[in-house]
């Protein structure tokens, strides 16, 4: 479970990105964070993975305040979650298989585990047959699947996605969303910041709308357009 308690974030340049945000996300939820650019939705995801830290307030992950973690503890926090970005962020010099394998090497998994788990996850995203290819040989959708496989390989209970379909055409985007949905169906919490109206409208999930650093709407089964124009 994730809980934001009176969280504010002011960047060093003085921009106030979040203002007294309160938020609760239960395990197994699928949550869209929506809002215009600069509204603060990305800041929320960054605070959850401690790329940024809250200036004020507490952020509880499974009951523990992650705002007090030291730099040394952050890697272990990040291992509890998978992350997917708009620009995929794959290691260009490694094959599909190696990119996914890498996430397991980081946590010190044995070679046997790796050999068993990586093909399973690649299969889940439908890319087993491209395991030996390099990211540049793949389409955007395929690259995002690799990123998804990498995010999933360590069985995280939380998956954070920042505009995961932003670089994809609508058709591919929907395919990716189906994967997200099946992952969520297996019990993984998903928090997705997005601009994609059609996706939000089609999925009928919980929608949290952020505007000027404040939460302006939070409803289950919501749509994109109702309150936010962008």
């Amino acid at each position, binding site marked *: 479970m994730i809980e934001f308690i009176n969280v504010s974030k002011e960047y060093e340049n003085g921009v106030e990105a979040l203002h007294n945000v309160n938020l609760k996300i239960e395990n197994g939820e699928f949550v869209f964070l929506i809002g215009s650019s600069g509204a603060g939705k990305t800041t929320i995801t960054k605070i959850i993975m401690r790329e940024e830290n809250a200036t004020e307030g507490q952020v509880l992950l499974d009951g523990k305040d992650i705002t007090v973690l030291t730099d040394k503890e952050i*890697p*272990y926090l990040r*291992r509890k979650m998978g992350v997917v970005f708009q620009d995929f962020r794959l290691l*260009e010099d490694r094959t599909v298989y190696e990119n996914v394998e890498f996430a397991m090497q*980081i*946590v010190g998994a044995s*070679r046997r585990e790796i050999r068993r788990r990586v093909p399973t996850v690649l299969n889940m995203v439908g890319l087993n047959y491209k395991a030996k290819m390099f990211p540049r040989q793949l389409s955007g959708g395929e690259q995002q699947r690799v990123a998804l496989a990498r995010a999933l390989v360590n069985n995280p209970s939380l998956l954070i996605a920042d505009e995961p379909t932003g670089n994809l055409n609508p058709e591919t985007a929907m395919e990716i969303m189906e994967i997200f949905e099946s992952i969520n169906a297996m019990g993984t919490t998903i928090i997705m910041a997005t601009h994609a109206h059609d996706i939000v409208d089609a999925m009928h999930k919980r929608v949290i709308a952020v505007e000027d650093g404040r939460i302006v709407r939070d409803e289950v089964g919501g749509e994109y357009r109702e309150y936010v124009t962008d």
Partner: protein
Amino acid sequence: MSRIKYFLGQAKKNIIRNGLMSVASLVTIVSCLVILGLFMIISLNVEVVTEQIKDQCEIQIFLDMDTSEERVEAIRSEITAIGNVKSAELYTKEQMLEEVKVTMFEGREELIESFNDEDNPFSDSYKIVLNDISLASQTASELEAIENVESVTNKQDVVNMVLTISKNLRWVTIVIMLLLLLVAIVIISNTVRLTVFNRRKEIGIMKYIGATDRFIRVPFIFEGVIVGFSGAVLSFVIMCASYSLLLKYLENSGFELFTLVDLAPVAIWLGVIFVLVGSFIGMLGSMVSMKKYLKV
């Protein structure tokens, strides 16, 4: 185990991928080590030559012509009673005459036929080896004070000069060594900094997935050590080859003023120092340049 394998594999991959950078680092390390090795060899040889000259620089004292044989023997114990005297060897006037005949009048012995053991123009002498050559002047005056000692020869000036050179050269070597270390570390760290800069995106990705700083840093350090070690081996080969060529050249040219140190001890010294210094430079160079990009 599999981690070390992973780290080594990554390091190897990085070295190949950063071909030009790796070569630049390698050349830097080799240049520094070769200069360092040059000074080490010079310093090592000067020390050995100093020892040789020290040994040659015994003090010789000449006795009065009419000193009796008993007195000559008695003088030996007076000489060895002096603290700084290591040994004293009697060199009789008969030996001296013989040596002069052989070395200076070979083939023309008739010129000095008139001299024989009964009519010998030379006097008995002692060749004295000292414990501490730097106290030679003092010992010489003590020797002079012994009765029946006519004169004392002493190559103190030469010895002092060689000692001074040797001592100064040791300091120069140390200073140069430190300077080169510094230069090498700065250059290597800059090279690695570039490598790390080129790969900052990759490092960022690793951090997002939850890699610890150590996990990211170790391959770079291995990379540095491997490049440093290779540089050491290369410099070692260059230095040993050049030195053995020099030895051979001197041997052929009949150079006899002093003998240089053999290749083997030089090689051992160079090998140990090069590998240690090379690996150390590589490691430190990598470590200092990593810090900035680990912050994501």
